[in-house]
């Protein structure tokens, strides 16, 4: 979980992800950030995230991000 927060913080250092309840709905991540995040997650957890899974619902919280990484074979 900490690693994911670190990745998120590197992508958008100006936001506090820990106090957010939904990164997408609250505007902390946009579609461009989502693609950057996917690349970082794939490198960190040695997986390939299916393009069909790259949708806002899967990137709203750290928990949902962990789920999508696991679903795609990530070593999390």
């Amino acid at each position, binding site marked *: 979980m900490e690693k994911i927060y670190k990745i998120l913080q590197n992508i958008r250092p100006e936001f506090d992800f820990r106090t957010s309840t939904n990164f997408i709905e609250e*505007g902390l991540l946009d579609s461009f950030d989502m693609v950057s995040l996917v690349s970082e997650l794939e490198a960190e957890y040695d997986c390939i995230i299916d393009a*069909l899974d790259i949708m806002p619902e899967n990137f709203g919280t750290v928990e949902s991000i962990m789920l999508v990484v696991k679903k795609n074979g990530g070593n999390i």
Partner: protein
Amino acid sequence: MLPVLEHDISVIKNTMTDIRRNCNGVIVQNYYNNCDDSNEIYVMYGENAIAFWCDDNGVIRGYYYASDIDELKELLKYLPKGTVIDVITRGDLNTSAFLGLSGFCFLHELQRFSSVGLSSEESKYISERIKFMADMYKVENVCVATENDVDVLNDKLYEIFDKRESHLPTRDELVEYIQRRWVCLYYENKELKGFYIFKVMSNGQFYGYEIWNGTGPDGYFSMVMKANELHAEYCNSNKIPLDKIPPSYCWVNVKNKKAMRPIKFWGMKFDGLRDFVYEKQ
């Protein structure tokens, strides 16, 4: 080589995943979940590259996803004349230089500005400036657009803005924005001199969509003030707490000095994201 007509973006997304799986190097792409609702997408398939396009309110917009840039360059040559490609990046113009080799011509550079990270001192300074400029707010000249204004507004939008650069709303979307009270107009002697179209995201975030000011600073300032009032009104009626709204943002053409000045005046800063717009010759 002929394009394949696809009716569902998921087929294309599956190809993207395959390209990613077979990739040992870098992926180049300009696809950010665009044209997901389109059921008419033309695709050029390669082994390690894909290029596709669809109609977006009268503009053909092109997208690509590739691990093999040479193959991509070949596929892009098949995109129709007039296809517009947006390359959104934190890099510079060189990141998309390969488009020039596939028959694309660079049109515009847009930059994203945001009110993120405004210090309390800056906010205070801006509030004081607003107080100082209060006399410029010509309340009697600015009003909320109604559905009777749709045709005039629609014509003006497409006359003033370049639809390749701005993702202009359809007529139906414009009607929706008017119904939501996201459009204000500025008149001088009964003549339309400006309009301000904004959007409010579900979290209350303000997006300055299309602003035209055909008069002096009074017109601009009045529309900004009115738009701020309408934004607050919208958030209140939708029970969005004003203190939880993320910073506002907008995209500006770097050559549009008339737009750049006021944006900086409000303390908005370039957040590092650029959009390079290309057109197929």
